[in-house]
């Protein structure tokens, strides 16, 4: 599951957004905050739900049943692993090169934990 996260930059970006906000986010909010299209967000959320990386909360608004998503403990733990890898990549910048560090930092949008 964690290896699959590494293969999908957008997935990590969405998980980061959920962690940063620290409260339930709706589908449209995630889409807006990550600047991803609905299909990308839907695909990511399906994966997260399958892997229990998020917890979906359901409620009714007007006549619709809607969902809000927040990180599960499993999701938080997965992000911690990615953070640690990011730290390690930064420490090895001399060997790996600046572009490698930059590539990883870009995943974090404006939420770079190392800045």
């Amino acid at each position: 599951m964690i290896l699959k996260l590494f293969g999908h930059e957008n997935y990590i970006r969405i998980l980061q957004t959920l962690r940063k906000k620290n409260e339930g986010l709706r589908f449209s909010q995630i889409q807006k905050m990550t600047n991803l299209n609905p299909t990308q967000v839907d695909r990511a959320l399906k994966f997260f739900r399958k892997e229990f990386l998020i917890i979906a909360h359901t409620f009714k608004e007007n006549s619709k049943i809607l969902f809000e998503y927040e990180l599960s403990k499993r999701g938080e733990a997965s992000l911690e692993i990615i953070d640690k890898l990011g730290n390690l990549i930064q420490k090895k910048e001399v060997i790996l090169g600046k572009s490698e560090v930059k590539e990883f930092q870009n995943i974090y949008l404006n939420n770079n934990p190392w800045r």
Partner: protein
Amino acid sequence: MAIIFLLGPSVWKSKKISPIYSPMQKRRQLAEIFRADNHKIVIMEDEPDIKDEHLYKKFYRLINDKKVTDIIMYWPSLAEMQTTQIELVLLGIQNDTLPTPPIWLFHHTSVFSDKMGEGIISDGEDRSSYLSSILNKRKKKRDVEFENDEDLTRKAEFLSKELQIKPTIQDLL
């Protein structure tokens, strides 16, 4: 450690469906997953009745006396759901007056699904207005979907771990 009230149907709608196990047996299998992580499980049918006690009173008594911390509602496809529906209504009523433990709706993807952030009920019966009215409460329900037996077991294991992690002091403040 959580104290989980494990609700759900007991029988399939038709005897032709899944002769391997009944929904009641499945709930007992799920109970074992949670017990393995030291959670306590309460199953309504396994708890002794008190003479002349109405079933709905037993339902509330178990939530209060057992100090239930979480409720799991198992909702497979093609099961006889009438009693479970009543239990959901009872939870809805309790939610209006007293704090209700978090409810985890454990459902098959064919009965209720997440379509781009919107919940769609599709169990072949008209339960939309019924479920909607239950959801129209202050407290949100936690939604866990499963595709098959294997997936159900995995999700139960994940949830069991999720509930195992003790809250920090900050969580409690």
